[in-house]
C-alpha cells in the first residue's frame, strides 16, 4: 500500500498523480480531476482563488487517503489539491486510486472526493466580471466531545 498526497500552488502534474498508482495486484486505476469551470449557478466565472490551512490540509488529505486504502482495499492512493489563483480549465484537485477489483476503484475515488469536500480545510473565492465571493461550504466534522 502506498499513499502520496500533497498541497501545492503549482499546476498539478496529473502524470505524476497517475503514476503513483498501479501494481501487479491491481485490476483498475481511476483518476479524477476537478477543474475550474467557466460557469457556476448561471454566473460567468473569470477565475478562482483557493485558500487553505496548508499544514492541516496536508494532514487531513493524508488521513483521507489512508482511510480510503483501509476501507476500500485501495493499493495506492494519490491525492493533490492546488491552492492560490487558478484560471478556467485549471485542475484544482486530482485523485488517483488503484484497486484489485474494478468497482472498488470507482467507490474509493468517489469517497476521497466526497470526504475532501467535507473536511479538507480549503476555501474558494469565485471571481466574476463584477466582483467576487467566497463560496458556501460545508460545516467541517467537529467532534461532539473534547478529545
Amino acid at each position, binding site marked *: 500500500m502506498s499513499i502520496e498526497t500533497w498541497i501545492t500552488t503549482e499546476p498539478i502534474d496529473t502524470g505524476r498523480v497517475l503514476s503513483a498508482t498501479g501494481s501487479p495486484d491491481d485490476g483498475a486505476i481511476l483518476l479524477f480531476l*476537478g477543474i475550474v469551470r467557466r460557469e457556476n449557478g448561471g454566473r460567468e466565472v473569470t477565475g478562482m482563488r*483557493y*485558500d*487553505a*490551512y496548508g*499544514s*492541516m*490540509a496536508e*494532514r487531513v488529505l493524508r488521513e483521507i487517503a489512508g482511510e480510503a486504502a483501509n476501507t476500500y482495499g485501495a493499493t495506492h492512493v494519490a491525492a493533490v*489539491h492546488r491552492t492560490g489563483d487558478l484560471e478556467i480549465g485549471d485542475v*484544482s*484537485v486530482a485523485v488517483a486510486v488503484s484497486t484489485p477489483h474494478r468497482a472498488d476503484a470507482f467507490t474509493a475515488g468517489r469517497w476521497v*472526493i466526497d470526504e*475532501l*469536500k*467535507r*473536511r*479538507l*480545510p*480549503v*476555501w*474558494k*473565492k469565485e471571481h466574476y466580471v463584477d466582483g467576487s465571493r*467566497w*463560496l*458556501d*461550504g*460545508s*460545516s*467541517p*466534522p*467537529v*467532534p*461532539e*466531545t*473534547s*478529545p
Partner: protein
Amino acid sequence: MRVRVLLFALYRDLAGAPEIEIEVPAGATARDAVRIVRGRGPAFERLPDQPAIAVNEVYANLETVLSDGDEVALIPPVAGG
C-alpha cells in the same frame, strides 16, 4: 498563557487579519479564546461566536481546554475540490 489564533478565507476578510496572538487564563477553552478574539475590536466582532475550530491542526469542539502555545484555527465552512 499564550495561544495563536489563525483566521482563513471569509473570516480573514471579516477580521482584516490572518492571525492574532492572545493571552488566555490557565484552563481556558477554545470558546474562551474565540470570545477574547471577538473582543479585540469591531472587525473581530464580525467573526461568528461559535465557529468550527481546529486545535493544533485537528478539528476540535469549543469546550476543548487549551495549553500554552496552542494553535487555534477558526474554520469557515470548507469548500475544497
